[in-house]
C-alpha cells in the first residue's frame, strides 16, 4: 500500500507527438482511481508510464516515498492486469502466477503459500491451477491475470481495461468482484477504462482525460452533477447529455433556447453573464413530461426506444433542429410525430461557455 504522486507528468514521443500534457494528481493509500476517456486520449499511455513500460518525458512519479521515474517495472512494486490477460500460454495457471515470485527468488514453500492464498481468494480450484490458460474461459483467465497481480503483494495495482474482452454479463460480475477484492485488500489501484459505467461504479475518484489533458478529477457523483467541461458532460452519463445553443437574457434570470422557449435559471440567475451566448446542457433523465405548465417546452417526437425499465424518446425542440433525448421511467406509450410538453427544474441545467467549453456557475 502506498500513495502514488504524479507531478507534471508529460509524455512526448520521439516523433514529436505529445501524448500527455501534464498530469498532477495524488492518489491516496488504498484509493481506487479510474482513468477514463475515449480511445486515444492517453489514458493507457499514462498508466503505462506509471507501470514503467513507457518512459516519462517530464515530471516526477512517486510511489510510496520513492521517485520511480527511472526504475524498471519490476522494481516499482506494482502489478498490472492487461486487457488481453497476457498469460504465458505454455505455462500452467500455477506457474503463471508463480513466475514473478520465482524470479524474485522466493523459496518454493512461500511461493506455494502465496499462490494457494491468491487462488483461494479468486476461487480457483486446485484442478484449475494445473491447466493451461487456453483451457480456461475468458472470465477464468481474467481471474488468473488478477491472481498473478495479487501474489506479488504490490503497493499498487494497475488495470488496463481488464474487462473489455469479456461478454456483457461477465463484465458486470467481474466488475463487482474487482471492486470487492480491491476493498478487501485495500491496495491502491489505478484502473483504465473507456466504459463510463465501469468508471462510475468502480472508482472512488475518476480522472477524465481528453487528448492528453485532464478534463476533470473528482468523485463519480461530482462528475455527474457538476461536469467541469462540455467534454465531461457529454462523456459521463448514458444516454449522453442534450446540448443546445442558448442565450442568457439581459436580466440574467432566464435562458432562451434557440430563440424559442425561455427557462428560468433559478437560484438568483446568472446576472454576470447577461446577454451571453452559452451552451445549455440537460441530462435526458432530468427532463420530465408535464400536462400543463407555463414553463414547459414543446418537443416533437421522432423515435422511441423501449428498454423496459425506461423509455428513450428522441426528438427535437418545437420547430428547431436541435436534437433532444428524454428518458422516461417505465413503459410509456409515445408515438413518433407526437408533441410532448417537457420541463426541467433549474437545478438540472448545466451551462457552458461556447468558447472555452468550461462550465459556468452563477455567483
Amino acid at each position, binding site marked *: 500500500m502506498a500513495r502514488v504522486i504524479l507531478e507534471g507528468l508529460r509524455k512526448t514521443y520521439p516523433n514529436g507527438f505529445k501524448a500527455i500534457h501534464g498530469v498532477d494528481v495524488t492518489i491516496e493509500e488504498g484509493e481506487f482511481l479510474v482513468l477514463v476517456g475515449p480511445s486515444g486520449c492517453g489514458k493507457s499511455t499514462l498508466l503505462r508510464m506509471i507501470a514503467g513500460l513507457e518512459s516519462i518525458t517530464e515530471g516526477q512519479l512517486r510511489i510510496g516515498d520513492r521517485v520511480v521515474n527511472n526504475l524498471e517495472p519490476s522494481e516499482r512494486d506494482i502489478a498490472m492486469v*492487461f486487457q488481453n490477460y497476457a498469460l*504465458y*500460454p505454455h505455462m500452467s495457471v500455477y506457474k503463471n502466477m508463480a513466475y514473478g515470485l520465482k524470479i524474485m527468488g522466493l523459496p518454493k514453500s512461500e511461493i506455494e503459500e502465496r499462490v494457494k492464498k491468491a487462488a483461494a481468494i479468486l476461487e480457483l480450484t486446485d484442478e484449475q491451477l494445473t491447466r493451461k490458460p487456453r483451457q480456461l474461459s475468458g472470465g477464468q483467465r481474467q481471474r488468473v491475470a488478477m491472481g*498473478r497481480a495479487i501474489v506479488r503483494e504490490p503497493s499498487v495495482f494497475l488495470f488496463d481495461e481488464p474487462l473489455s474482452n469479456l461478454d456483457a454479463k461477465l463484465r458486470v460480475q467481474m466488475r463487482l468482484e474487482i471492486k470487492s477484492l480491491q476493498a478487501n485488500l485495500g491496495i491502491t489501484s489505478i484502473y483504465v477504462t473507456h466504459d463510463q459505467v465501469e468508471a462510475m461504479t468502480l472508482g472512488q475518484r475518476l480522472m477524465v482525460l481528453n487528448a492528453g489533458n485532464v478534463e476533470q478529477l473528482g468523485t463519480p457523483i461530482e462528475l455527474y452533477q457538476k461536469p467541469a467541461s462540455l467534454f465531461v458532460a457529454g462523456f459521463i452519463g448514458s444516454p449522453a447529455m442534450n446540448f443546445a445553443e442558448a442565450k442568457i437574457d439581459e436580466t440574467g434570470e432566464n435562458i432562451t433556447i434557440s430563440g424559442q422557449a425561455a427557462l428560468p435559471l433559478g437560484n438568483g440567475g446568472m446576472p454576470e453573464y447577461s446577454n451571453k451566448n452559452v451552451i445549455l446542457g440537460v441530462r435526458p433523465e432530468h427532463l420530465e413530461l408535464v400536462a400543463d405548465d407555463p414553463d414547459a417546452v414543446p418537443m416533437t417526437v421522432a423515435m422511441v426506444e423501449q428498454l423496459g425499465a425506461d423509455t428513450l424518446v428522441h426528438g427535437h425542440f418545437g420547430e428547431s433542429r436541435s436534437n433532444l433525448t428524454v428518458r422516461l421511467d417505465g413503459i410509456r406509450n409515445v408515438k413518433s410525430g407526437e408533441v410532448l410538453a417537457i420541463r426541467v427544474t433549474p437545478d438540472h441545467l448545466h451551462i457552458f461557455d461556447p468558447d472555452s467549453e468550461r462550465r459556468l456557475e452563477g455567483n
Partner: protein
Amino acid sequence: MVENRPLLTFFSHIMLILGVVMIAFPIWIMFVAASHPETRMTQVPLPLLPGGFFFENLDIALNKGLSGQSGEGVARMLFNSLLMALMIAVGKIVISLLSAFAIVYFRFPFRMFFFWMIFITLMLPVEVRILPTYEVVANLGMLDSYWGLSIPLIASATATFMFRQVFLTIPDELLEAARIDGAGPMRFFWDILVPMSRTNIAALFVILFIYGWNQYLWPLLITSEPQMYTVVMGIKQMLEAAEQAPEWNVIMMTALLAMLPPICVVIFMQSLFVRGLTETEK
C-alpha cells in the same frame, strides 16, 4: 466436402496408388539389391524379390566397406554425417533464434540494415560462396574437422527470418508482463520465447537436419581423410571405385543406411513438424 461419385473415387485412388508406386519402387529395388549376394546383382534380369543376404551385406557395409578399398566401413561415415547434421541443425537454430531475438526485441543502430544483410544472404547458396569459404576454413585450419564441416553452413537467413516472423506474432503484452514479473531479456528469451517457439523449432530441426545430412559438395571439398568422410559423399565415391564392377549390394545397403536417419527424424517429429508449420494460436 461430401461427395459420392464412385468413379471419381476410383480414379483418384488409381492416381494416388500410381504415385506411391513410382516413388516406392526405386526404394524397393534398393532394398532388394541390398539383400542379395554380390554376384546376383550382375546377372540379368535383376531380382525383384528380396534375397537372404541382408544381414551379411549389412555387416559388410557397416564394418568392412568395399573390397579393395581402405577397409573402412560406413559406420564411421554414418557417425560423421550424424554429427555434422546435428551440429548444423542445432547451430543454425541457436544462432537464428538469437539473431531473430535481437532484431525483433532490441532497438540498436542499423537494426534494419543488419536485418537486410541477413536477408540478402538468402540469395547466396553454399555453392556460390564455396571458394572464399574454403579459403577461410583452410586458413583457420579447420580442414578435415567437424568444425570445418559444420560452421560454414550454420548461418541461416531462412531460419532467422522464420523465427522473426514467429516472434512478431507473440503479443507485446507478454513481454510487458514478463518485465513486470522482473524477467530480464535473456530470462524472457529462455522462459517465454523459446518454449513458445517449441513447435517451430521442431519443424526447423527436421528441415535443417535433412539439409545437413544431405550436404554433398561441401564435405567433398573439405575432407581428404577417409576418417572424416560423410555417408552421402561416400556413396558417390563407392560408385567410382577403381576399375572393378560396382558392388551393388554394398552400395545399396549404404544408400539404405543413409536414408534411415532422415526418415526416423521425420517420423518421430512429424506431429510437432506439422504443428510447427501450421499452428497459429499463440
